[in-house]
């Protein structure tokens, strides 16, 4: 029943996108609720009192916070279709390790790139490219990090690609030449219906970034 699953989210959030993709992969019907982060709903504050952040997955009235934890929960509850995590413990641990790496490196560095200037920005760009190359190595010759199908790490990582594409018009980042494998992988993921319908229009993300840069006084 659709009203059994609710997702509190914010449309440009890459973390929210992860949960949307997981739900779509499993074919789960749910109610999507847009949050205004400047005016958080009582429901959000009640469901995530510790961090007050989105996304929050609510299943049968109970909240699951933190995007990667929600994705694992979805995989464990709806375990009969499209497994998102590998079945072998070591491979599962590897997937978790790299998803944690994406959280620690990609998100923070990405933010530094389009929010800072000069030396700090150049240093962030260098570290970021190195991180992408490491992830490319982890991908190897596979179609997806999950092998033949979309898996946990693909879901953890691909939402950030929509943001990188958003930085490109600013000439901030040119990863096409340095990380072609990554670009190919991301485009492959975007061909999947579950991903395509879970990520916003490129133009909308770009507009969103333009807006924030204006507010932060970055030109």
């Amino acid at each position, binding site marked *: 029943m659709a009203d059994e699953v609710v997702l509190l989210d914010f449309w440009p959030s890459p973390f929210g996108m992860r949960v949307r993709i997981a739900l779509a992969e499993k074919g789960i019907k749910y109610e999507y609720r847009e949050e205004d982060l400047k005016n958080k709903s009582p429901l959000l504050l009640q469901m995530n009192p*510790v*961090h007050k952040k989105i996304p929050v997955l609510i*299943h049968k009235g*109970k909240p*699951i*916070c*933190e995007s990667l*934890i*929600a994705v*694992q*929960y979805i995989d*464990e*509850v709806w375990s009969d279709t499209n497994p998102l995590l590998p079945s072998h*413990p*070591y491979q*599962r*641990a*590897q997937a*978790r*390790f790299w998803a*944690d*790496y994406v959280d620690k490196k990609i998100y923070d560095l990405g933010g530094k790139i389009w929010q800072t200037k000069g030396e700090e920005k150049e240093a962030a760009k260098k570290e970021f490219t190195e991180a992408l190359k*490491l992830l490319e190595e982890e991908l190897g010759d596979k179609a997806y990090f999950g092998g033949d199908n979309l898996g946990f790490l693909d879901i953890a990582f691909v939402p950030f690609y929509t943001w990188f594409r958003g930085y490109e018009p600013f000439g901030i980042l040119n990863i096409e030449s340095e990380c072609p494998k990554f670009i190919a992988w991301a485009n492959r993921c975007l061909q999947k219906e579950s991903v395509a319908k879970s990520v916003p229009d490129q133009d909308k993300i770009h507009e969103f970034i333009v807006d924030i840069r204006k507010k932060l006084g970055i030109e």
Partner: protein
Amino acid sequence: MASESSEVRLLGKWASPFSNRVDLALKLKGVPYKYSEEDLANKSEDLLKYNPVHKKVPVLVHNGNPLPESLVIVEYIDETWKNNPLLPQDPYERALARFWAKTLDDKILPAIWNACWSDEKGREKAVEEALEALEILQEALKEKRFFGGENIGLVDIAANFIGYWVAILQEIAGLELLTIEKFPKLYKWSQEFANHPVIKDGLPPRDELFAFFKASAKK
């Protein structure tokens, strides 16, 4: 075929709570292992080989397969050796356990650490945040004996810093953070934790830990 336990190695640092989490998990499961102490100022070839990404401890090496990141390792240990489960069976309870383990690392531990090492200027605010963090953690405990219920679980292990290190660090810093008056339930938990028969043998000796951090404080 060699038994599961025949080739388990831990590269660690005796004073590190992150490294200690892995010791505790292995001991709770009764898994024999070889321990190597790493000198972080002079990293061994093995450490650089087994954790090229972060070059940190702890790293678990099982049958030649390396795995870094303490919480990823503890889940792997739980999935590989099925006795004395560290995570609950129910997916929602599992998601909650993961949430608290992550919140400990992302929010609670840094708040306590900052308070203990803060200078005069930032002290008041840091202490306030540390006390808020402990309050949140105590609420999560509710009326349970351990975070894992009747037995030690993932969250208890993740909270080893709170259960054992905090008492030492707050004494050195001259602060009163985790006290029986301020947090009676959490304080009681810390006593149960540190006196648990398996945990007790797995924690580093108090005097040596005190001396180690006292020396760091002087620098």
